[in-house]
Structures are given as structure tokens and as C-alpha cells.
């Protein structure tokens, strides 16, 4: 298992490398630069700026510099947010995004599994239809509709929770963003778990467990769900990475200082290092969670072997 993990991590290195290279040259090919304003800047000042940020060097040498800085854990200075390095920005934003994302993930997994399993046990009953309906609603309603409505209802009309803004200390600010982030994931997980639980409940090992006279609680909770979690787990890999690296929409609507906004802002402002930093972070999260998914898979399904 350890060898497998190490091998996977080693094989991820070239993938990350290719992603970094692709992104680096693609963003550089985009017309415009980080210091372009409506009114052209004096060429001398522009030359100075370019020298200060090492933009006057040939592209390949900038690329090598970037790679070597990256190996030292330095993501470079931000071009548009003066006085901040990308490391500074992420040091503030990443914990916020990870906090929100992991709580949303937790809510989604727990609630989605419970709802899905409940619907599967009571297949074709009112509960089942309610869960399926809720799931379809959650999948089809985009988060940029849900977020403003929640903010309006609970923040403005009822006044129970803050309509927007952020506080690291006050969990009241966390509730609406977490609900918005978790809702579509609850829906997808509930659907996946429902489908696979229905199948698992008909399988031989569950019938055997029933024949032993085990209580339904154990049959479903231990034997059926263990197999039924597999599709949800493989869905969760990329989803977890997406949730933990922040959502542009949720952060924009609720005014949260996470890192989800940086990608769009960076790409629009030609903030090369900020875009690169976001891509690197996202790629690492995706690869990490795909690895976690594979390991969890092996733990849930003893037939899967990785040596």
C-alpha cells in the first residue's frame, strides 16, 4: 500500500509539470499585460515595471525562474495586488476556502448518504419520491440562483443570519455559504447512494446477512452501504478538490475572502503569477484527492488490490 502511494505520487509529478508548463505559456500568449491601463503608461515607467517584475527577460528564462522559485515554495509576487506575494494571498485565503469547503463536504457526505440510503430502503414510497425530487432540484438549480435567494430570505427578510461578509470567529457567517456549497453535492451524493444501495440490497452478501438474522440497521449500515458508497466515493475525489479550492460564485455573492475568486480575477487582470498559483494549488488538490479516493476504495472494497 505504501509503495503504491509513493508510486502514485511520483507519477503525479510529470502531470503537474505538464499542467504548469501549459498554463504558463497559454496565459503568456494572451494579448495584453498586467500593467496595461486604459491610458498607455509612459514607456520608461513600463520598462522599469517590466524590469522590476523580471518581465523583460526572455520567456524561457522567466519560465525556468518560475519553476525554480516554485521548487522553493515561492509562488512569486502578485502583479495586480501590489505589495502582496501570491503566497501571502493564499496564506489568508486558502484557510477560509478549506474551512468552508471541508464543512460543506462533511454536510454533503453525511446528509447525502443518509438521504440516499433512506430513499433506497423505502423505494417507491413518499420518502423516496421526496428525496429524488429534492435531488433533482439541487442538481438543476444553479448556485448563483440559490445564493442570492438564501441571502435575501435569511439575511434580509428574516434577519436570522448575516446576508454576506465573513468572520473567522463567528460561525453565523459560515452557514449560508456552506448551505449553498453543499446543496448540489448533497443532491448528487443522495442520487448516487440511492441507486447503488438499491442494487446492493438485492445482492447476495446482503441476503446472506439478512439470513443470519442481523438487524436491518446492521444490514444496511454495515453491509449494504459499504458497497453502495463506492460510486459516491469516486465522485467525491474531484468534487472535494473543487470545494476546498473555493467557488467563484459563492465567494463573490457572499463577499468571502477565499481563493476561488483569484483565478477569474487573475485571468482577467493578466496577473500571471496569481493564475499560475491558483492552477498549481488546484492541480495539487485534484491529484491528492484522486489518490485519497483510490485508497478509500481499497479500504471499502477488499477486492480492490493495489500491489
Amino acid at each position, binding site marked *: 500500500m505504501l509503495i503504491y502511494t509513493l508510486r502514485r505520487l511520483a507519477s503525479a509529478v510529470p*502531470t503537474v509539470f*505538464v*499542467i504548469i508548463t*501549459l*498554463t504558463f505559456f*497559454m*496565459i503568456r*500568449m*494572451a*494579448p*495584453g499585460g498586467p500593467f496595461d491601463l486604459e491610458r498607455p503608461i509612459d514607456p520608461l515607467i513600463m520598462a522599469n515595471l517590466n524590469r522590476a517584475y523580471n518581465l523583460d527577460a526572455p520567456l524561457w528564462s522567466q519560465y525556468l525562474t518560475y519553476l525554480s522559485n516554485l521548487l522553493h515554495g515561492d509562488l512569486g509576487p502578485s502583479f495586480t495586488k501590489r505589495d502582496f506575494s501570491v503566497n501571502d494571498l493564499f496564506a489568508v485565503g486558502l484557510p477560509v476556502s478549506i474551512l468552508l469547503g471541508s464543512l460543506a463536504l462533511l454536510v454533503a457526505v453525511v446528509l447525502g448518504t443518509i438521504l440516499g440510503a433512506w430513499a433506497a430502503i423505502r423505494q417507491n414510497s413518499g420518502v423516496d419520491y421526496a428525496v429524488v425530487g429534492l435531488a*433533482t*432540484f439541487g*442538481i*438543476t*438549480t*444553479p448556485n*448563483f*440562483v440559490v*445564493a*442570492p*435567494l438564501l441571502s*435575501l430570505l435569511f439575511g*434580509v427578510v428574516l434577519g436570522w443570519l448575516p446576508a454576506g461578509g465573513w468572520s473567522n470567529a463567528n460561525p453565523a457567517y459560515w452557514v449560508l455559504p456552506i448551505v449553498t456549497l453543499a446543496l448540489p453535492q448533497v443532491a448528487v451524493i443522495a442520487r448516487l447512494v440511492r441507486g447503488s444501495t438499491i442494487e446492493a440490497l438485492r445482492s447476495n452478501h446482503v441476503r446472506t446477512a439478512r439470513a443470519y438474522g442481523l438487524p436491518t440497521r446492521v444490514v444496511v449500515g454495515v453491509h449494504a452501504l459499504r458497497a453502495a458508497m463506492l460510486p459516491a466515493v469516486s465522485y467525491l475525489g*474531484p468534487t472535494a478538490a473543487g470545494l476546498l479550492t473555493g467557488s*467563484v*460564485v459563492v465567494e*463573490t*455573492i457572499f463577499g468571502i475572502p477565499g481563493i476561488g475568486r483569484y*483565478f*477569474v480575477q487573475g*485571468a*482577467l487582470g493578466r496577473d500571471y503569477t496569481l493564475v499560475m498559483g*491558483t*492552477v498549481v494549488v*488546484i*492541480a495539487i488538490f*485534484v*491529484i491528492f484527492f484522486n489518490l485519497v479516493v483510490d485508497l478509500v476504495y481499497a479500504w471499502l472494497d477488499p477486492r480492490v488490490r493495489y500491489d
Partner: protein
Amino acid sequence: MVVQPLPLDEPPPVAGRSLWQDAWIRLRRNRAAVASMVVLVLLALVGIFGPALWPHPYNRVYPQFVRVPASLEAYPRADTILPAFERELRRTRLDAGPPVLEGSEITVEVRADEAIDPRVLRYFERSDLFSNPRLDLAEDGRSGTIAVDVQRLHFFFGTDAIGRDLVARIMIGVRISLAIGILASFMALVLGVTYGAVSGYLGGRVDNVMMRIVDILYSLPFIFFVILMVVFFGRSLVIIFIAIGFTEWLDMARIVRGQTLSLKRQEFVQAAEALGATRLGILTRHIIPNTLGPVVVFVTLLVPKAILLESLLSFLGLGVQDPLTSLGLLISEGAANMRGALWLLIWPALTLTLILFALNFLGDGLRDSLDPKDR
């Protein structure tokens, strides 16, 4: 002894049913799927013909009706007609008697010290409230009656922040969103099916390299390409659907490759190979048609994804631009105005949700009806 042959009825010919006919029969039994199809066809018709037939053009601004709430009653409201008329009347600087509202016509007696210039009617022509102003002058030209028709406008979903009819804008939004959804999915379909079928059929090292490329593209943030393309080539409808198509073909390529891997081992492909069919011929005649079942299902689920992606882009300000609009842009404007004008958020959001609901149900229905396990 003569054996009389028993008269045999000719057995009725057995009509064969193809996979697609079977699927169609099963699909028709699924009420949610049929209802979704009806809804989608209606929405498509609304998107295609609605903007041309609707009385308000989608880019017509009514400055006097900014942000009026959704209502079945006609605007202007009965109690605002006469004050508005008097306001215009004052600008004509004529001595006027009390205006009389009868049905949808207002008449007023006017008098002046000099001859009345018929150009005073311009004040009424310019207003959104009145139309067809007429001036009946007496012999001396110093007195007469002005008559105008009150224009009764309906804004069933209200108007937006600069006074455009929301129904007309939603119709255009439906058109743009559906068009982008369908075109982008078609693009992903062509790319993904070709790539996946070639990769799976050639197999071996080519397959390895081609799938590795897909894996790498998977790890890039999906919105990355879209933003870069929009940044590169500017914002236009064509770029948006190409960009979305480019980001959505990866899953399709994987599905088709998996199908192709199992299909190419089957006897009918071996038979075609033995008969000397070319690789291209086998791919296009035998392999691709047999992958279409799962592909059709996936496309129905891809259309809502593309629509959502376009809405997301428009929401971020990277999509279509004013005065053209899409459902995502309308929702974004609605979210900005929701505190005073909730209808601006509710109606576009409902329309988008309805489209996505219908497409999802149709996709589910298609999957159930094309699934051979179900027989």
C-alpha cells in the same frame, strides 16, 4: 383417398423492432420524460419565434416604465394616466380645460392667444404612454381639441432596471441559452466521439498517449480554457460555444473509448475485418453507430451542463453582452436588483430551472429506455 390439406392461415409477418423503436416505446411510457419533451419543444418554439411575435422588442427601452413590477394589468395604471397627461399638456403651454378620459381615449379642449402650432403634438408622441395624437382646430386656429389614445402596455414579468420588458428578454435568453447548450454539446459530441473511437480502436501505445492527454486536461480547472479563449478572442457567441464544447468533450471521449474497446473484440467487427473493410470504414460504419446509445444519453445530460456553464460565464461577466442576453446574465442582473425588484431574479431563475429540470428528466428517461438491462 385424397387427403385434403387443412386450410392454413398465412401467419402474420413478424415485424422486427429495432433498438431505437424499442427505446421509443419505452420512452413514451415514461410520463416525466414525455412531459419534459413537450416543455422543451414549447420553450424551443418560444425561443425561436417568441421574440419576433412578442409586442415588445427585447432591446426597446421604456424610460417611463423602469422596474415596474410583474403584473397582469396593463400599464399605465388607471390612476396615473391623467396626471401624466396633464404633465405633458403643461409643456404645450396652452390654456386647457379639464381632460376627459373615455375608454382608451383622452380629449381636452385647448385655447391659445395665437394660432396653435400642430407641432405641440410632439410632446405626446414622445411619451411611451400615449399614441396617435390628433388636433382638431377651429376656424380661427386658436382653439380646438387634442385627442390621444392611451397606449396600454402589458409587462407580464415586469421590466428591468432600464425599462425593458422582461418577457421579451427572457425569450431572447431562452433562445441564446438553448442555442449555446445545443451547439456546444454538438461540438463536444463530434470531438469526443471521434477522439474516443480512434483512441479505443487503435489501442496500444496510441491509446495510452491519447488518454494521458485527456487525463492532463482533466486536471486543469475546467473554467480555465473558457476564460482563456474568451480573453484571447474576445466575447462572441461563437467563441463561447466553442470554448464550452472544448471543455466538455473529455467525458464523452472516455465513454466512447470504453465502448469501443469492448466493441472491437466482437464478431461483427472481426467479420468486417475479414471482408477487408478499411479501418476508417469499420470505425464509421460499425463502431460509432453502436456507441450511440450511451452517447445520446450523455448528450442530453451535457446540454444542461453547457447551459449552466454559459450562465456561469455570463454571471461572471464573461458571456454574452448587452443588449443581447442569456438566462445567466438575466439572473446576474436580477441578483443585483433583487432587494427592490425580486421579479427580476425570480422569472429568469424559474425559466432556467424549468429548462434544466426538463433536460434532466429527459436524460434520465432516455437512459432508462436505452438500457438493455431493463428488458
